[in-house]
């Protein structure tokens, strides 16, 4: 059976790196899985908040349209059981003066594919994306985020934070795409990854595409172990290494979690991450 | 005998369609030191930028005359070559261009003569010593990684090296400690003589210690609302702007 394509890197690169395409996990292809479809329409000038804590649906598709001056706060928390695969794709179009706040957390599932596409179609529209992921065991996380800046004076911000432990593998593709005519637009992208032990695999693919001169774009990636001096400091205050790790990873995730409006959900994710660090293989 | 250097006549200017300067009249003679005071947002920096010809501001009415020549339509570099210099409030950081390279290029552009590298370097070194700037800074990129005080001293270094006829000093003393203000103030007084003039924006007046101030102008909401001699500086330092009369519509 031919593999079904789930998402692609907006501009392909060397094939040997294995980042150009993401294919649907086999279990979702062989056993056709119903796709839950969610449609969100934000009327002009209105604000909509939608929080999706997903524990059961293996395939989700969210499409949203934010009309002029509207704002959407979309929170998508993937909390599937650890033996299930899952996919989620999000597509949002923002009209003039519209604002999109997207918060994502990839916590569960054995293999997860997530795609987030935001089109800043209207002038002065804004996208603020913050996401976290935690990979442990043999989990595989595949993310493809694309913010397309079409309107004038649009603003994109993409902050992604993650931690990998055991033999988890992750690909994060983050693209800022400045289209011709997107004059006065700015884009910022940053991924911070903490690598908790050897045996992980981290692939980071930050793309910045520009067909417009009058833009200001920046992206950055940093990947490495926990800062030794910080770890030492915490341990000198009586914490053991695992406790120190929990604290540092917790701090890394805090700015993303703050955006989750429900305190119980925030608590649930923090606890889950702490527990997994506690039970890490090393 | 006095000679007029800069004459500003009924100057209206603004940015992005908003008028900031609403009719400024100001005349500066050679040999004079003028001070502009005014609360934040009164248009002081805009006035400096407009005199220098910042492309982000549009002159909608009035004129600027420099040594009898109308410069209202001149580009920034043409005004600089005519002899106007602006010491920036926040000097730009420009990677890849060294202080020395920029200064030599600028001086050649202004004088139209080739600078001998050796003589120029010697002069630069002397000026840097004078301003207590580490000599290695001549090879550093323009303002990149300079502290606030170093940037301001670098502005004065440029003033001394380029020897303009009119120096516009936009809060050159702000954010500096007492010693640094002394150095900057010494630099300005070294520059100033009977053939040139200074127009100074200041908040703390310490930069004026070594200078004889001729005229003080108080700017409020884009208009000069009060003028006077050096005594006005002390008065405003003491009493603030509160008692200065509001603009008359």
């Amino acid at each position, binding site marked *: 059976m031919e593999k079904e394509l789930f998402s692609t890197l907006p501009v392909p690169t060397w094939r040997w790196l294995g980042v150009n395409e993401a294919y649907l996990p086999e279990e979702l292809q062989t056993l056709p899985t119903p796709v839950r479809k969610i449609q969100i329409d934000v009327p002009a000038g209105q604000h909509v908040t939608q929080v999706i804590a997903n524990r059961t649906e293996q395939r989700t598709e969210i499409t949203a349209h934010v009309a002029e001056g509207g704002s959407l706060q979309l929170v998508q928390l993937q909390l599937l059981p650890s033996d299930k695969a899952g996919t989620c794709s999000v597509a949002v179009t923002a009209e003039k003066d519209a604002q999109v706040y997207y918060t994502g957390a990839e916590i569960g599932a054995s293999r997860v594919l997530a795609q987030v596409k935001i089109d800043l179609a209207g002038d002065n529209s804004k996208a603020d994306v913050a996401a976290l992921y935690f990979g442990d065991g043999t989990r595989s996380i595949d993310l493809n985020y694309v913010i397309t800046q079409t309107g004038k004076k649009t603003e994109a911000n993409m902050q992604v934070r993650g931690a990998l432990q055991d033999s988890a593998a992750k690909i994060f593709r983050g693209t800022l795409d400045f289209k011709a005519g997107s004059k006065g637009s700015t884009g910022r992208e940053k991924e911070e990854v903490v690598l908790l032990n050897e045996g992980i695999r981290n692939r980071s693919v930050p793309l910045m595409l520009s067909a417009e001169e009058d833009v200001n*774009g920046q992206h950055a990636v940093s990947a490495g172990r926990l800062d030794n001096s910080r770890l030492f400091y915490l341990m000198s205050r009586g914490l053991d290494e695992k406790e120190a790790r929990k604290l540092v990873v917790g701090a890394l995730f805090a700015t993303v979690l703050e955006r989750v409006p429900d305190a119980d959900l925030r608590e649930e994710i923090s606890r889950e991450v702490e527990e997994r660090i506690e039970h890490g293989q090393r | 005998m006095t000679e007029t250097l800069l004459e500003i006549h009924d100057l209206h200017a603004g940015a992005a369609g908003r008028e900031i300067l609403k009719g400024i009249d100001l005349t500066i003679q050679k040999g004079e030191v003028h001070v502009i005071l005014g609360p934040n947002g009164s248009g002081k920096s805009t006035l400096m930028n407009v005199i220098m010809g910042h492309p982000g501001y549009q002159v909608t009415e009035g004129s600027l005359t420099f040594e009898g020549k109308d410069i209202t339509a001149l580009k920034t570099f043409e005004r600089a070559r005519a002899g106007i210099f602006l010491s920036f409030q926040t000097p730009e950081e420009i990677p890849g261009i060294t202080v020395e390279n920029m200064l030599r290029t600028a001086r050649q552009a202004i004088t139209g003569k080739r600078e001998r590298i050796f003589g120029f370097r010697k002069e630069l070194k002397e000026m840097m010593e004078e301003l207590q700037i580490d000599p290695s800074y001549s090879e550093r990129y323009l303002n990149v990684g300079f502290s606030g005080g170093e940037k301001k001293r670098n502005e004065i270094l440029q003033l001394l090296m380029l020897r303009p006829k009119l120096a516009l000093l936009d809060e050159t003393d702000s954010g500096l400690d007492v010693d640094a203000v002394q150095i900057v103030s010494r630099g300005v007084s070294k520059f100033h003589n009977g053939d040139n003039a200074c127009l100074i924006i200041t908040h703390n007046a310490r930069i004026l210690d070594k200078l004889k101030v001729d005229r003080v102008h108080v700017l409020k909401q884009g208009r000069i609302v009060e003028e006077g001699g050096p005594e006005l500086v002390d008065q405003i330092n003491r009493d603030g702007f509160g008692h200065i009369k509001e603009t008359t519509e």
Partner: protein
Amino acid sequence: MEQQKTFVEDIERTLYDIRNEDHSVYKTERGLTEEIIRDISRQKKDPAWMLDFRLQSLEKYYRIPLPVWGPDISELNMDDIVTYVRPGGKMAGNWQEVPEEIKATFDRLGIPEAERTSLSGVGAQYDSEVVYHRVQKELSDQGVIYTDFETAVHEYEDIVKEYFMKLVPPKDHKFAALHGAVWSGGSFVYVPEGVHVDIPLQSYFRLNAAGAGQFEHTLIICEKNSSLHFIEGCSAPRYNVTNLHAGCVELYVKEGARLRYSTIENWSRNMMNLNTKRALVEKDGLIEWVSGSFGSHVSCLYPSSILHGENARCEFTGVTFASRGQDLDTGATVVMLAPNTSANINTRTISKSGGAATYRSAVKVTPGAKGAKCLVNCESLLLDEKSRSDTLPVMDIETDDVEIGHEAKIGRISDEAIFYLTSRGIAEEEAQAMIVRGFVEPVAKALPLEYAVEMNNLINLELVGSMG
């Protein structure tokens, strides 16, 4: 203004577009067949193993598809390309013996003068053959070998056999396979253990025939604790047909050795520059790449560094300037295989007049590369609204004990920076040129003076009359 523009462009054309009459004594048929490969091999009096190597590579070339990524190279039709063009005359050891016309070309490009003033050895390749090769006697006395590649195949056959296309095997990609089949000319450098070549060696490649290909092979071996700076310059006159450059550079940096490989490439705007460069760096070794890409119609160039030994290092400094009609896809790859390896990648790209510049890179950290460090910094400048600039880095990390940092910026020259400089009396155009030169300063600094000057001249040629 217009006047000046025309004037300057005229200079540029006369310098790089000198087109000599085609006096070649021998030309292969168009297209690529086994017969042609046998022909080339016969002409070069290849040893039998080399003929076999060529034929095997040809097989691979037929089999391997074109890459699915990168710039559009569909206009390249291999059947239209005369793969082998041999200019008249024999190889010379004395500049006076080089045919007048060829000599005049190189003279105008300043090659012999560069040799007299600042280089310890020069190789000049004209189309597919090396016409001139010299190396200072002091160096040859120390055992340094610097010769054209054909001579190396015969005189240093064992070394060539051991290293040739081992680092870039023909199966790597279609153009590596093509290179393996049709390679011609190039340089061979061998620096014995402990020898430091203090003055740079230089090779200059020039493609003169229309619709031809240049497939030179460069093989440099720096033995333990030796050091070398090698400079490669490339140019070609402008023709209306597509030319192809598919060279191959293989660099072996042994334990504790240092090699700096500098390139200023200014191929004419009809050149497809599909070049493969790779370095293998052993323990404590250092490869430094300095790469300036200005010419060609399409470039795909990503020098790669395989850091094979502990503490092996790579420093990559690159500048790419894409102007009208150019699609320049450049960057670097680094593969970190050993503990405490490190890489610094620093690039600047400029796009203007509808040119497209892409920064593409791959950093791979394998599980064994504990303590690896890699810092990437790339900045892109767009000079007008017709141009395009893309940044496509990939980092693939398979161990936790790493420090990986990547930063990229894209934007235009700030109006405030222009205002600052013009307020000092510098005209707008000059201010912009200064800022662009400042932007590429990290690269200029890494180049020998005369090349830094040439690079600045190239930038000025590109900028004058087209901005402001």
